[in-house]
């Protein structure tokens, strides 16, 4: 690497922002060029479904770093710019206008895009998805105190926006295709808790409802389900998951399987001058002994640190305990580890009558994850236990009479 070397980053969100900073910290003295199809510099996405929609935060508040910081780091931006393809033979990227840009190291931070619901009437106004700032801005304009909102999807995005719209005075129905909310990310009893929470707050959750069409003249007026049920709506938000943006990688011959396959250093084994970071990347986890593609900010940031080292010819493997968080009403949900494969679950606290408990997950007697509801201390404890491979017994973890400090002693 020398001062003429060029690092090109495709994508301009959390992963890119951290990658830029980490590249300079790792000693990248060459040029840095970021190509992003967004209008803005990287911004925090999690508040889009929370404090941004409620009006507490402005677009300026959302910026991960101020424009002056990138200037100081000598970064060149091509915003609102589409990359057409990657030519690995000549080490260049081809833009939508045909322009070719050379790279020495290439970082794919292409993220993910929302899955679309293709049913009759889906082009009516008032129907939204939520991924980008522009999506959130459009939703904000349609929020009306006393109006009716229908949320399609019972995942984080669906439930967070439902909570927010309710707080802002809308009547809210949530339509869930499966038998329970948060099915993809938590166990049945925790789903039941969130259903109870939302109904206590005045939201109707309807499971096993599959939207069949939207009705309205120009503006959406109702959602018709396959069951025949009709839900009146002034505003519809669809949150049914995302698809990783892997097309560029696949078209240039990099291995892809629901994510761009990388090694523990975030590099593609097919071409080590290319790294992939964030929602679009699928990495081997030494903790869970399988390939994972994670959709979270901490994952994007931490992978970026590892990828920056790789681009600078250094070695910094990515091996962290995944974690996620969600805010709904007065609930802070913090999840440590992965709970998609477990054979035992125990609860600490009163999941049926309170808003404070932990669900601990075990596989073959080994702690693999914890869902913490308003239990930040147990969350921090879980992170440490998972990181260090410590396994208190399910009985100990479930015993709410044992204080957190006593649990801490168990692991020290």
């Amino acid at each position: 690497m020398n001062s003429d070397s060029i690092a090109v980053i495709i994508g301009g969100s959390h992963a890119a922002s951290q990658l830029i900073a980490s590249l300079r910290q790792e000693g990248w003295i060459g040029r840095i060029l970021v190509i992003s199809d967004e209008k803005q510099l990287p911004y925090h996405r999690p508040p889009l479904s929370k404090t941004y929609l409620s009006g507490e935060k402005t677009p300026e508040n959302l910026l991960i770093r101020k424009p002056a910081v990138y200037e100081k780091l000598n970064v060149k931006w091509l915003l609102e710019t589409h990359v057409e393809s990657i030519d690995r033979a000549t080490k260049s990227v081809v833009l939508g206008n045909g322009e070719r840009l050379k790279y020495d190291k290439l970082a794919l931070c292409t993220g993910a895009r929302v899955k679309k619901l293709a049913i009759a009437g889906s082009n009516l106004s008032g129907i939204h998805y939520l991924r980008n700032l522009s999506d959130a801005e459009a939703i904000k304009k349609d929020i009306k105190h006393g109006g009716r909102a229908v949320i399609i999807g019972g995942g984080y995005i669906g439930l967070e926006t439902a909570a927010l719209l309710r707080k802002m005075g809308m009547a809210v129905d949530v339509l869930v295709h499966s038998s329970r909310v948060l099915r993809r990310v938590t166990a049945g009893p925790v789903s039941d808790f969130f259903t109870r929470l939302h109904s206590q707050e005045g939201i109707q959750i309807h499971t096993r409802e599959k939207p069949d069409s939207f009705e309205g003249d120009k503006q959406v007026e109702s959602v018709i389900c396959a069951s025949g049920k009709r839900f009146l709506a002034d505003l519809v938000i669809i949150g049914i998951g995302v698809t990783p943006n892997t097309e560029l990688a696949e078209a240039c011959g990099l291995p892809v399987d629901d994510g761009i396959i990388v090694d523990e250093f975030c590099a593609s084994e097919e071409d080590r001058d290319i790294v992939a970071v964030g929602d679009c990347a699928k990495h081997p986890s030494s903790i869970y002994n399988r390939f994972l593609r994670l959709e979270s900010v901490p994952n994007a940031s931490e992978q970026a640190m590892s990828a920056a080292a790789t681009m600078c010819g250094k070695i910094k493997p990515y091996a962290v305990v995944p974690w996620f968080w969600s805010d709904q009403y007065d609930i802070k949900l913090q999840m440590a580890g992965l709970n998609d494969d477990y054979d035992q679950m125990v609860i600490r606290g009163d999941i049926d009558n309170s808003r404070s408990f932990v669900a601990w997950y075990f596989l073959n007697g080994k702690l693999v994850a914890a869902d913490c509801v308003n239990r930040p201390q147990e969350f921090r404890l879980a992170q440490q236990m998972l990181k260090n491979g410590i396994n208190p017994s399910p009985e100990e973890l479930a015993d709410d009479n044992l204080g957190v400090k006593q649990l801490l002693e168990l692991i020290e």
Partner: protein
Amino acid sequence: MPLITYIDHKGNAFEADVPVGDSVMQGAVDNMIDGIIGQCGGACACATCHCIVEDAWFEKTGPASDEEKLMLEMSSEMQDNSRLSCQIEVTDDLDGLVVHMPQSQY
């Protein structure tokens, strides 16, 4: 613009001008100061922006909220003056603020 001094676990001091209204965490992130990570972007969800406010300034920053305290208490490096720096909003009153960053965040 208020000047804030961030001191790492080895005693090295880093000074930064941080705009009024920003958090002490944002000041560190914008100035590439290691030791304050701020993974969750200020949502009080990750506790990776722990700082220890120098005694003379603690009255001005005020103590941690209950929510902050719960997160901080799990850190072996917690002290009476510990705060999550994402929860300290920079004001003109805090011009000259000095905070220390714990070793675990390096």
